[in-house]
């Protein structure tokens, strides 16, 4: 019986292969978009995690010595006093960061290195091995230690045993810092008793790197999720149609005595099968998409945040799992209503397919109410909500609410068009378009969301680019930057530079808590460089003059937001009061920042001398100067930053970001276009009875076909027009709500009308192309088929 039932159900797909194709393709594409974006994110995160585990930075408390390195005897003394600490020795080898750890005591263990080989461990301890990615090892010169390629080590880092690191770095008997294990013994003497000159640094709640890059990832995730919603709309449509068309088969099966529960189980089984298949195709597609995008994304993040992620993609089992889960879950979501209706269907209900499209009209009122409810919820969340979850909830409510409202709004617009019709033909066109609206509405909703997502993300990425380049101009105002290794070198460097360049601007900072928040205090030299380039988000007139007078300070946006400081408030730095006269944007910086004048800085922090210098110089002389510094001071590129080089690189990176965004844009629009095509094809057969009378009254098939295309373009245009404000709201939510909640700074929003026009053109073109085939089909309908409409009973 089960077999017969299953065969009967499956025969539907054999008769409607296009429907099955739509279902599988839509679900696959939705899963591909989701899992591709996730793959890019996961891969990048895995790279950071490897880095964080390698470095033990942020995750654990650490002990450092104010004198520089920690003598190894002190490490042993701490262990023997019951302090569970693990040594880290680090430095640079051929300019590459080398980190030595003790695998036995390290809280993170040797996690980054997949040691599955006991012999390797023996060799690592007794003779030493350098673990790094292949690329890093290739950059490393000749060393007398075995190199072992491992893709689990963070890029641009060499990991080795602490003893090997001491030898290679010439740090015999020295430890750079100690990592404190999270679990310590029940009894333990205080640190200051054993090592009075050591400092215990508590673990950071989130690593600096993580917070910076999370902004980018969060936005990518939002994009992936929105794309998935587009796909699910299409799946919902395809499943709903299939259910409606199968009503006679289902009624017959039930009338033959097939139990309802059994039937539902079979349908669920069938849907799970289809969604698993589509999910697998989708994950595979997503993998290739991610593989194609990853080099760009890697470069983007490395360029944006100076953090390298490996440019290769590893296939991780969690993608399969999450991809399949989302495909099955999405299908369940899309099929729930149809299954419910089937469960409630009376045994002898009419088996005539309720032109499924028509049925939507019945629920029009419910849909309108629900859409209103969601849109009101979105505004309330935007107004009253706080937190990242509220931000995302607002995004979802806004999008789904707008999508549900779309058919109602379009219907209103079409009705208005109908009222203003000047000819019978025109009136028929409007009426016929309204008639088709329910059948197309799911596809149009998908188009709306796709278009809005694209507008939103383009706005966000472009705003990010503008803001960031402006920020680079501000922060890298000098033509050239030099970093000294120690105070002595700094002093001779400064003297050397004073003679050769227009102006040397020392950069010095101190760590202080401002209103309980960790912050960096900067004391720049008064110079036009800052007045010209430092743009305030909010400031009193003549802010720089007040700062230079010594009684005032400027703070970054992060500090202002977190501590609730506004212009005119007073803050205390090292016991001295300062009036806040300016607030500036400081994108990507996780902690607070304060600027005071150099004289005040020197008075408050007499022990700090600058190691970094900004250099104002004719840009054409930068290369010569860096060569001189290399020859006279032995400085490498690590110690020097060529501002123009950085800016050019950053812009190049942004262009790659655009490639990624552009690729995603086109994909989502393609998915929406595909939905329109499938809806039109489905409607085409149902429409013959409606078109036959029009044809019979003398309108040619060719003209009817042209009108089909005009109709698709019109609907796409209307939808696009509605998508623009929705997309801008989306962008605003991402920049002004989600970003602030996640990172503490707001990205200014810029508008890019040309981009939107291009996107609209894409959307309309997608709709026109989608309508082309159904229209051609219609134009070529055999007259006999149209005549049959009058001959047949219906």
């Amino acid at each position, binding site marked *: 019986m089960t077999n017969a039932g299953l065969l009967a159900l499956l025969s539907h797909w054999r008769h409607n292969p296009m429907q099955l194709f739509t279902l599988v393709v839509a679900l696959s594409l939705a899963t591909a978009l989701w899992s591709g974006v996730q793959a890019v994110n996961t891969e990048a995160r895995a790279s950071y995690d490897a880095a964080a585990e390698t470095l033990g930075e942020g995750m654990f408390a650490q002990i450092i010595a104010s004198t520089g390195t920690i003598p*190894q*005897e002190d490490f*042993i003394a701490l*262990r*023997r*006093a*019951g302090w*569970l600490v693990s040594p880290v020795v680090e430095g640079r080898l051929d300019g590459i960061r080398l980190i030595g750890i*003790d*695998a*036995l*005591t*390290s809280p993170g*263990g*040797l996690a980054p290195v997949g*040691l*599955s*080989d*006991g012999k390797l*461990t*023996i060799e690592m*301890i*007794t*003779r*030493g091995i350098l673990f790094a990615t292949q690329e890093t090892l290739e950059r490393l010169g000749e060393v007398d230690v075995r190199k072992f390629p491992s893709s689990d080590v963070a890029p641009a880092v060499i990991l080795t*045993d*602490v*003893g*090997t690191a*001491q030898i290679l770095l010439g740090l015999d008997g020295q430890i750079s810092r100690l990592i404190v294990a999270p*679990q*310590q*013994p*029940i*009894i*333990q003497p205080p640190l200051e008793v054993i090592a009075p000159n050591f400092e215990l640094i508590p673990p950071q709640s989130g690593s600096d790197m993580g917070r910076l890059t999370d902004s980018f990832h969060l936005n990518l995730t939002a994009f992936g999720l929105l794309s998935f919603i587009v796909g699910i709309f299409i799946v919902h449509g395809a499943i709903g149609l299939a259910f409606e068309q199968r009503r006679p088969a289902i009624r017959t099966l039930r009338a033959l005595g097939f139990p309802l529960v059994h039937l539902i189980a079979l349908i669920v089984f069938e849907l799970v099968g289809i969604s698993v298949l589509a999910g697998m195709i989708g994950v595979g597609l997503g993998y290739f998409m991610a593989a194609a995008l990853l080099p760009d994304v890697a470069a983007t993040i490395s360029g944006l945040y100076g953090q390298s992620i490996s440019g290769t993609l590893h296939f991780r089992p969690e993608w399969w799992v999450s991809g399949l889960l989302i495909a099955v879950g999405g299908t369940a979501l899309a099929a729930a209503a149809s299954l419910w209706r089937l469960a409630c269907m009376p045994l002898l209900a009419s088996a005539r397919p309720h032109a499924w499209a028509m049925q939507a009209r019945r629920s029009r009122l419910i849909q309108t109410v629900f859409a209103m409810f969601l849109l009101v919820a979105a505004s309330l969340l935007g107004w009253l909500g706080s937190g990242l979850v509220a931000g995302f909830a607002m995004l979802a409510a806004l999008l789904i609410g707008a999508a549900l409202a779309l058919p109602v709004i379009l219907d209103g617009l079409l009705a208005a068009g109908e009222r203003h019709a000047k000819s019978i033909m025109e009136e028929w066109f409007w009426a016929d378009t309204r008639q088709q609206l329910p059948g197309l509405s799911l596809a149009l909703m998908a188009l709306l969301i796709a278009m809005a997502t694209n507008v939103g993300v383009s706005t966000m990425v472009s705003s990010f680019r503008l803001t960031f380049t402006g920020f680079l101009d501000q922060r890298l105002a000098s033509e050239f930057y030099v970093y000294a290794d120690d105070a002595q070198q700094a002093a001779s460097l400064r003297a050397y530079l004073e003679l050769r360049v227009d102006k040397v601007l020392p950069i010095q900072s101190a760590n202080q808590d401002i209103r309980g928040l960790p912050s960096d205090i900067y004391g720049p030299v008064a110079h036009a460089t800052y007045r010209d380039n430092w743009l305030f988000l909010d400031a009193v007139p003549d802010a720089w003059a007040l700062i230079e007078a010594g009684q005032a300070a400027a703070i970054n946006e992060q500090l202002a937001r977190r501590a609730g400081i506004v212009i005119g408030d007073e803050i205390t730095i090292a016991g001295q009061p300062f009036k806040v006269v300016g607030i500036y944007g400081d994108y990507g910086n996780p902690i607070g920042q304060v600027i005071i004048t150099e004289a005040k800085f020197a008075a408050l922090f007499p022990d700090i001398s600058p190691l970094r210098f900004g250099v104002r110089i004719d840009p054409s002389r930068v290369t010569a100067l860096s060569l001189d510094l290399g020859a006279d001071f032995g400085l490498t590129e690590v110690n020097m930053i060529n501002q123009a080089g950085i800016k050019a690189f950053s812009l190049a990176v942004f262009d790659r970001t655009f490639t990624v965004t552009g690729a995603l844009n086109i994909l989502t629009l393609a998915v929406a276009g595909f939905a329109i095509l499938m809806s039109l094809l489905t409607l085409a057969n149902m429409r013959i009875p409606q078109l036959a009378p029009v044809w019979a009254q003398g309108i040619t098939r060719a003209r009817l076909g042209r009108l089909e295309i005009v109709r698709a373009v019109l609907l796409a245009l209307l939808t696009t027009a509605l998508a623009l404000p929705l997309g801008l709201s989306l962008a605003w939510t991402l920049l002004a709500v989600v970003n602030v909640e996640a990172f503490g700074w707001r990205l200014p929003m810029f508008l890019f009308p040309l981009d939107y026009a291009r996107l609209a053109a894409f959307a309309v073109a997608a709709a026109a192309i989608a309508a082309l085939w159904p229209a051609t089909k219609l134009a070529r309908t055999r007259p006999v088929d149209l005549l049959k409409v009058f001959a047949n009973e219906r």
Partner: protein
Amino acid sequence: MNARVFLLLLWPITASAQGFAGLGTDVDGFSSPQRPAQFDFPIDHGPHYDYRIEWWYLTANLEGLDGTPYGLQWTLFRSALTSNVGKGWSSPQLWMGHAAVTTPDAHFVTERLARGGIGQAGVQADPFEAWIDDWQLVGPDFATLTMTASGPDFAYDMVLNSDGPLVFHGDEGYSVKSAEGQASYYYSQPFYAIEGTLILPMGSIDVAGDAWLDREWSSQPLSDNQTGWDWFSLSLEDGKLMGFRLRQTDGSYYTSATWIDPNGTTTSYSNSAFEADPVAVSDVGGRDVPTTWNVRLPDRGVDVEVTAINPQAWMDTSVPYWEGPIIVQGSHTGRGYLEMTGYD
């Protein structure tokens, strides 16, 4: 702690996929125990770097003022990656410490790992000192020791004094572990009186009792076909009994035992004289572990049932095993310690 790394270091009692057969590996470059065993004290209380594995293994049966029984363990293992001493970080000598306190309803365990050659852990013979981090077993000589250990949820501070001689197992300290002839050097000091303070989450507890210290070293004590062992130390009215049963892949056993008179005189029993059979098993974190045993040494009229004071005394360390205090009833009464490996 990084258990995984340590597991890879071919630790002797490392549970490989085949159970505790991991010991049966090569002995390249390491010395093997030879007959007749010859000891030189106090030097032999110290490490033997030319042997692959070695331990200083102390267990104690304690009692609080209210009569509550407690168990205590302090163990330092040495494992050599290669057969040389080495200097600094490149030393192939690795150290692992296990400490535990068992109460009738709780079991506290902790573990420490350390590299040799840098002073974080080690053993010196005279004056005697064995240490890893802040844990130590130290004294002017082997008969008078103080002992400390600490973990995230417990610590202890104990004083030990022995009034009896060292006891040598097997053939004068040459202890055979299989029919193929695998052997270790093995002696004990079973006559310690111990007292001190346990610091537990519920507070400090003054305790006293008796302790047993095992010293053993070898390069390959288990045979390829052995999967684990069950080791008993019993303190009875008229003497002490050490017996172990090595389980073999074919279901048979290899046993060995030493009877110790109160004056320290020993009688060694070779394979089959000592018998131990599980009577009841407990579910210990999803594993079936025998925690009640019938133990027999017919030659001495010993036929007793030993029962774990706390069946959940699982050592959840990088090399997991069961170790805890037991009580003895039957032909004899008393208390003791039970160690079982290869049940994970």
